[in-house]
């Protein structure tokens, strides 16, 4: 049985959506067990590799807009996922890279950011997991894969969002090895295809959600369901980050050594 993992990284969401689209299970199939639902969701939407070109837009409270473009490469999944993001636009940030390598045993992944101006990578430390990822409303923890095995999950009921029936699942980080920024996450899973519809993120010690992610514009690409639009709202700052996914390709073989520090540090290395 495939285990379903709801991933928080854009590419992982895409994977999940594709899986959902191909398997397409009926609503009644889903049992009342949250863990089973999440496993099923992951098994439906999982892909081996994924490539896409992302269009990133950050709109702050005052309506100021910043745009960037990147290319994302992913190989493996959850506990063995490797992910490289390379910025291509605007020219000032061209060549900036981000590499994330999952680590086993529930540890937080290793993450590095490469800056061409410094000609060197810098490691993202555990203390920086809540720092904004390159000025977006995603933080470095949001850039990790969501591994439901790191969470205590419970089904909290069902709810209609935009007339779409959803399961409401509460996930609380176990934090045996790796620490989390969040106290809990509330996931809204579409009942029709077990694709993630929305996620509310609660920081430690807070009663109200700090951020909210919504996956929209669900389409089928190469036989996989994929949400082409991902939106992260910072409910406190009032800013929104939108990622539009283009040129999505699944299950292509990856160049060897793509997911290494050497490649990250190679200017323009894809």
């Amino acid at each position, binding site marked *: 049985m495939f285990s379903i993992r709801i991933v928080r990284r854009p590419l992982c969401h895409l994977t999940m959506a594709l899986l959902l689209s191909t398997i397409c299970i009926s609503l009644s199939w889903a049992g009342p067990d949250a863990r089973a639902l999440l496993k099923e969701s992951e098994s439906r939407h999982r892909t081996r590799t994924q490539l896409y070109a992302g269009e990133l837009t950050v709109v702050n*409270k005052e309506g100021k807009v910043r745009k960037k473009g990147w290319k994302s490469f992913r190989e493996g999944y959850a506990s063995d996922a490797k992910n490289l993001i390379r910025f291509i636009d605007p020219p000032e940030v061209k060549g900036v890279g981000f590499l994330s390598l999952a680590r086993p045993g529930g540890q937080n992944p290793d993450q590095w950011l490469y800056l061409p101006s410094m000609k060197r990578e810098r490691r993202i430390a555990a203390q920086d997991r809540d720092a904004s990822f390159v000025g977006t409303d995603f933080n470095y923890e949001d850039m990790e894969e969501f591994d439901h095995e790191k969470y205590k999950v419970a089904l909290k009921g069902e709810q209609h969002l935009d007339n779409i029936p959803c399961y409401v699942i509460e996930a609380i980080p176990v934090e045996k090895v790796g620490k989390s920024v969040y106290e809990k996450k509330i996931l809204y899973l579409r009942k029709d295809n077990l694709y993630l519809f929305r996620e509310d993120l609660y920081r430690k010690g807070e009663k109200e959600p700090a951020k909210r992610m919504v996956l929209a514009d669900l389409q089928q690409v190469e036989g996989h369901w994929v949400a082409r639009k991902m939106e992260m709202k910072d409910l406190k700052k009032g800013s929104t980050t939108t990622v539009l996914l283009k040129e999505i390709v699944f299950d292509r073989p990856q160049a060897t050594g793509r997911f290494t520090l050497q490649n990250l540090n190679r200017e323009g290395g894809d």
Partner: protein
Amino acid sequence: MRFLLRTLSLSYVRRHTAKTVLTLLGVIVGVATFSSIESAKGTLVKGIRSTVDRVAGKAQLQITMEGGVPEAVQEQVRALPGIRATSPVIEQIVTPEKGELGSLMVIGIDLLGDREMRDYGFEGDDADLDDPLLFLAQPDSAIFTRQFAGKAGLKSGGSIAIKVPKGVKRVAARGLLTPKGFSEAFGGNLMVVDVYAAQELFGRGRRFDRLDVRLDEGVSIATGIATLEKTLGPAFRVETPGKRGEQMEKIVANFVAGFNISSGFALAIGIFLIFNAFNVAVNRRRRDIGTLRALGATPRQVQLLFLAEALVIGIVGGLLGTLAGTTFSQAFLKMMGQTTETLYGVTSSGIVHLPPVVVLESLCLGIIASLIGAWGPALTASRISPTEAFAKGTFQARPPGRSGLRITVGVIALGSAILMALRPPFGGNPFIFTELLLGGAGIVLLVGPLTLLLLLGLVPLATRFAPVAGRLSGDTLLGNARRTSGTIMAMALSLTFVLGLGGYMGSTKKALERWMNDSLTCDLFVRASANFNRPDFLFPGGLRDDLQQLPGVKSVESFRAIRPLYQGRQIQVTSIEYNLLLERIKYDFTQGDVAAMRRGLIQEGKCVVSDNFSRRYKLGVGQRVELVTPSGKVSFPIAAVVRDYGSDQGTVMLDRSQFIRYWQDDRVDIYDVSVLPGSNVGQVRDLIRTMLAGRYPALVSTRQEFIAEITKALDAFYALTRVTLFLALLVAFLGIVSALLISVAERTREIGILKALGAFPAQLARGIVLEALLLALAGLVLALPAGNLFAFFMEGPLAELFTGWIMSHHYPWEILLQLLVALPLISALAAWIPARQAGKMKIVEAIEYE
């Protein structure tokens, strides 16, 4: 008493405005100097402290290491239990190309994760850094405070030229900080850059200046320090920001304490001026005093009247002086700041705020100085008996005390001061204090009698050149022995300071120059940092090979100096390739010889220490110096002791191989380049510049240039001496003006008669100028031996106490020459106002003047 003050004193002031103003000026100059130095000092020290505090933010501990904290330490520390966050910091002071903006403190931090440490207070338009990715991706990015941006006319996105080690660089403002908390550090003259960009910019290699550490909640500071010290070893210092601030404060406070000399000197001079003015006032008002006494005023009432006047002058002068002080303090702050920046790499920027304590102190000092100055004259006044006061003819209030006793005590005081200087019975500040007290008292007591003796000799000489003017001025000077000796005493003391400090400065400079000529013998010096004391850039060690391959280069040595603490003092540890260096330098050995030095340094891993180190720590050949290195404590046997003026706190010399072995740091401060015989130094210099261009800062100096630059840096250190010099001359000027004004007023009748007999104003003026010249000359002649004694004391026992250096005396001929030119000019200038007054005097009124 109030009636007397209001009527008698006030009307006296009204009649003698000029004299009162001069008296006031004495207090004002003293108090202004004191208050401006004090408040600038306070602002500097507090600024440094607050900058440390503010920059530290929420950091509870700071890890530092001589030469920088290697990057890897960060991961090591982060993995430790109880550590919530760490953040690397690089700090550097730079100047914008537009110098008037003041020094900028550059703080390199890890912008990705620094929010655990500092609150940046981004607000308004750029509710965040405008775009962190844009910021980090572009190496010219910087964040400025709104304050500074406003001052520099800088908008978000705009750029400003900054002088960095590699040259002038334009940086772009990609974020503005709201002035609160952190961004108020360094008076708001703050520039924040990415720490990795700062490494590159300031040649830190893969090192940080320090690591800021924040502990988990519930972990005590003591536990944190213990954990970190255990993990990191003795080469690292783990301190709270408060402690670090305190230490920096201490270093700087010690330095600026030197300004206390100027401050105290100014006050002493103020007291003299007041003393002089009151003395004269007592003489002038003797008939009034007599009348008062005849009408039943008690001696105490008379004394109180004068003291009350002094009190008023003290209060008014104190207030005005404090006010005047605030205007100067900014300039003082700038000067002190520059010096501490050069010397210690720390400074603070900002506006001087006059602390209430300083205001109070200044006022009190003004009052106390006035009262001390007026005490003697007031006592004399109270002892005037009415019958004496009414007696006709010239009158001199008799000073209390006898001249025989005075001379004896003076000789004893001065003699014991000299004896003590030759064989100090105890050390430290008590020694200096006792010396200054005894020496000062001796001089003060002896100046009076000596003055008379001197004038008795000088007057006939002057009379030979200008019969009438000479006789007249001579009579005036000798006739008012007390006033004359008072003026000359103030002058002599001023000039003693000038000659003494000047002699000391000159001797130090001479000794250093000789040493530099002997030890700086290579052709070119390739430096990465303009600052001699705190390097703001270091070359990588590998550059030596590149330099050596340039055509025309004979040899290259890599010099590196660090300044670790040794027994609580900042000593210097230098390293170089001694096998090469010993080929070209002849050391002056105090202990050991060249062979022992060569063998010890190169083959046996020993060290060589400077003579002042040896003297200070009482260590010589055969003994050991224990130094803390990143590899642990290492004890180096001493192979030789050589004369070296590299550091006033002592130098330990090691071979480069030893340094690299124990410090694991191959970076280089200066490459000493020797050129092949027949090669053109200029051409080699150009080759080096071309090679380094764009890669590294390239401060390539020839030997002469290098020596000149060091000399210039040393001059900055002596800035305080120049302040004293200036004050001394100002005091000399004030002293002469007041003495002459009084003299003219006293001789009103005589001048009137002279005019009646047909004297031209020019003739009268000549007499007054001659009087001024005689005063100045007498002051100078007395100051010559006293200044010598003072210089001897500073160069000898004092310098040895503080630096361990022994210097040969160098007479400050150039200062003497300057004085010989300046003093007559100053005297003539000082005589101008009184001379004009005498010229304008109406004959009839003058003759009737009583």
